[in-house]
């Protein structure tokens, strides 16, 4: 049998293929249409060219009809829409992630109330000596040592340039004790030491003692535009501290904007302006713009003016040199924490981790949405087909529709909530009781349109059973619209879940859902620092809705055969 199809044999394709073949092998130099081929040229020709042309019926069939496939075209059309494909990917990633999330390491239980640790503190030091200290458990596993009743376990994290840090504790009288610091074997980069509750002021120093979280000095800076004065005990100069501080005096570093000249520093004590005196500042060697001076420790209100007195610092700085910050055990739950490295989306007002609540809620909402959509699809399609196809049932269904459509769904929901415990099941049942009728009516209208078309008439005349007419003739025509309704039913169900939470009929707090997360966040709206509790669920909810909406729309466009090219 020839390897060339009849179509190729009929069209010029065959000839040109041969021409190419011959030219490639150097047999042919001129035009194939020249009839005067030499002997060896003839010998080089493909034998198939001269074989019997056998007609294969199935092959002929294939070339005679288009190779149109409905689903193939639908998918191809869908993938032409780049926005929809992008949304589909986002949607799939989101759905997938909600199911993966609980199995990732270091996830909190969504309902776990996180308490500040009552025995330990975590002390994180940055390279410039700034630090944060709180009771959020940042290390993994159990404590390296169990602190005694009058001790606090302090975990210390320093930048790697600090080496093994040294820790000093001070009591209220300012007596210094060095603490034994050891590295935590289970957590790289963390060190721990035991702190007595009698001496709870903690300072950390680097291994070479050049960097510390606490110095016997203050650094004053003046910003250029508003002349605001900032006071800090974080070391800002590079050189070592001036060590010949006179007794009863404290060291102050001052940095002023370029136009100020040598800043004038006036100090005053608790008595106010009557005790005011100027102190002399000297430029700091090797550091541009920095000056240092000594002020009497008891007079700690500093007022800065420029050299000629024309510029004045906006605010007074209270420079206190006392003890390092007291390390305190914070009691209670970790409430309303902004998003941080431990709680990625922050915590809510009872200390639950919003990140895991978020995904657990998304999971719940998606589950509700999908189940409701599936029930609506099955019941709605069945009822809609009966409603449209069986004329005797039309009156019954129409009255039922009027009924269900006019009874406020809230009443049905309230009753469902009384009969059953509030929960996912109740919400799904309550939504499905009323939801299917909308799709049923939609299907019914479609059936009415298609039912009496000629091809159905023909089927009926041929005696095709009704079931077969419905499943073979009617249903495939409605695939695109039904799919669209399904895609929209999922965000719709999520939306009504939000509404239910709003009116107080939603899921209990122990079952996080997008509805009760948004609702909870809404109550935090008035505090600007807590708005993240509203933003995060609202954004996720919007992303889900937009994705389903756009993908559903694009798919229904693609599934419409009118759009197939």
């Amino acid at each position: 049998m020839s390897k060339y199809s009849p179509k190729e044999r009929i069209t010029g394709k065959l000839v040109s293929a041969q021409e190419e073949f011959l030219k490639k092998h150097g047999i042919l130099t001129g035009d194939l249409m020249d009839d005067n081929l030499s002997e060896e040229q003839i010998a080089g020709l493909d034998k198939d060219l001269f074989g019997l042309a056998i007609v294969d019926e199935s092959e002929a069939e294939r070339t005679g009809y288009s190779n149109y496939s409905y689903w193939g075209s639908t998918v191809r059309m869908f993938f032409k829409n780049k926005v929809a494909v992008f949304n589909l990917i986002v949607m799939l990633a989101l759905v997938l992630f909600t199911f993966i999330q609980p199995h990732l390491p270091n996830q909190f239980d969504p309902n776990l109330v996180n308490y500040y640790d009552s025995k330990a503190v975590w002390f994180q030091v940055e390279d410039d000596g700034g630090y944060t200290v709180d009771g959020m458990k940042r290390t993994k596993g159990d404590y390296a040592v169990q602190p005694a009743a009058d001790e606090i376990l302090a975990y210390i994290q320093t930048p790697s340039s600090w080496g093994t840090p040294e820790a000093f504790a001070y009591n209220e009288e300012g007596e210094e004790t060095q603490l034994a610091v050891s590295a935590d074997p289970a957590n790289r980069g963390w060190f721990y030491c035991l702190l007595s509750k009698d001496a709870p002021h903690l300072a950390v120093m680097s291994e070479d003692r050049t960097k510390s979280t606490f110095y016997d000095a203050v650094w004053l800076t003046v910003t250029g535009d508003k002349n605001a004065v900032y006071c800090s005990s974080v070391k800002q100069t590079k050189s070592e501290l001036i060590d010949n501080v006179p007794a009863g005096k404290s060291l102050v570093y001052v940095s002023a904007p370029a136009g100020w000249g040598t800043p004038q520093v006036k100090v005053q004590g608790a008595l106010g302006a009557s005790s005011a005196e100027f102190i002399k500042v000297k430029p700091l060697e090797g550091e541009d713009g920095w000056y240092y001076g000594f002020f009497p420790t008891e007079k700690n209100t500093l007022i800065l003016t420029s050299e000629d007195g024309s510029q004045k610092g906006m605010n007074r700085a209270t420079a206190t040199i006392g003890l390092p910050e007291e390390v305190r055990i914070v009691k209670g739950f970790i409430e309303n924490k902004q998003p941080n490295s431990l709680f990625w989306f922050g915590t809510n007002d009872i200390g639950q981790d919003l990140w895991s609540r978020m995904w657990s809620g998304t999971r719940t909402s998606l589950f509700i949405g999908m189940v409701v959509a599936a029930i609506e699809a099955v019941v709605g399609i069945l009822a809609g087909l009966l409603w449209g196809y069986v004329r005797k049932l039309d009156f019954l269904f129409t009255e039922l529709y009027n009924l269900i459509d006019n009874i406020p769904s809230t009443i049905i929901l309230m009753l469902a909530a009384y009969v059953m415990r509030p929960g996912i099941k109740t919400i799904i049942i309550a939504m499905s009781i009323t939801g299917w009728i909308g799709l049923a009516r939609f299907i019914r209208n479609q059936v009415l349109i298609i039912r009496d078309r000629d091809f159905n008439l023909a089927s009926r005349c041929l005696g095709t059973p009704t079931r077969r007419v419905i499943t073979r003739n009617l249903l495939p025509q409605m695939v695109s619209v039904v799919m669209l309704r399904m895609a929209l039913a999922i965000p719709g169900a999520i939306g009504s879940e939000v509404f239910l939470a709003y009116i107080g009929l939603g899921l209990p707090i122990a079952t996080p859902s997008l509805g009760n997360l948004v609702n909870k966040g809404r109550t935090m709206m008035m505090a600007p620092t807590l708005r993240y509790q509203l933003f995060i669920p609202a954004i996720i909810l919007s992303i889900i809705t937009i994705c389903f909406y756009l993908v559903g729309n694009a798919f229904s466009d693609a599934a419409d055969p009118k759009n197939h090219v």
Partner: protein
Amino acid sequence: MGKYVLKRFGAALLSLFIIITLIFCLLRLMPIEGYLGPNVDKLSEEVIAAKLAAKGLDKPVPVQLFNFYRNLARGDLGKSWIYRENVDIVKIIKPKIKISAKLGAMAMALSLIVGIPLGATMARSKGKWPDKLGTGFIVFLQAAPSAVYFLFIQMYATKGTGLPMLYNDSKPISWILPIISLALPSIANYGMWMRRYMVDQMNQDYVKLARAKGVSNKAVMMKHVFRNAFVPMVQTIPSSLLFTIMGSLYVESIYSVPGMGGLLIDVIQRQDNTMVQALVLIFASVGIIGLFLGDILMVLVDPRISLTGKEESR
């Protein structure tokens, strides 16, 4: 036509009867404790019996139902039980309906004025940037939870423009934000459907014919496409207008508008049965009347549609 109206009227009465009866019976399934106030445990049995008798709850359900219909036939909706004890329901609802309908009607006018031209513009420039911009706007409005963006409108608009934050019936300037909030979702809705219907019409043969005849683009759009696309929109307008009396739960609670929004939910939760029955009766009637008026309006706008034909085209 007259016969058709009569038939529809009869069917409407029947539906109303079934709905009310059903609601009445469903409400009787609610737990008894809900009617007695917060201190149920401390009440003696005599007090409970007396309280139930005062509300007529001691009689069997059919008798209660009969009494209800007898009063209804006299035009008496009854008195509220719990929401505002022993106040005529009509008295409670009347000022609330006025406020909700006023705001709702203005919001609807706004959304029609903005939404229809928006949809028409999008359809005319299909695939170009006004269409894409409009689609983005519509998708955002439909996707973002309205409870959330209403809050943002209230917060940032009052900060930015100095408009009052709460509704005040005597100061029309405080109506602006609630009206805009009410209008936004329906602007998106009208815009979306207007665009879809117009695009559907633009692919029809008669439009091609009109173009082939040399009718200008503007005339094709206004006289042919727009008019035909507007017909399905018309059907929903009366019912949306009538349903404005239901108010909006979100908007009214954010701006403390003393309207109807949330009233039904509130009285259901408080088991104020007479109020629930009255409200369901009103809303169901409004729904049925709205559907009917929509059908009539559709006939007026499109003479080709006949309601009395063999199959009602909906």
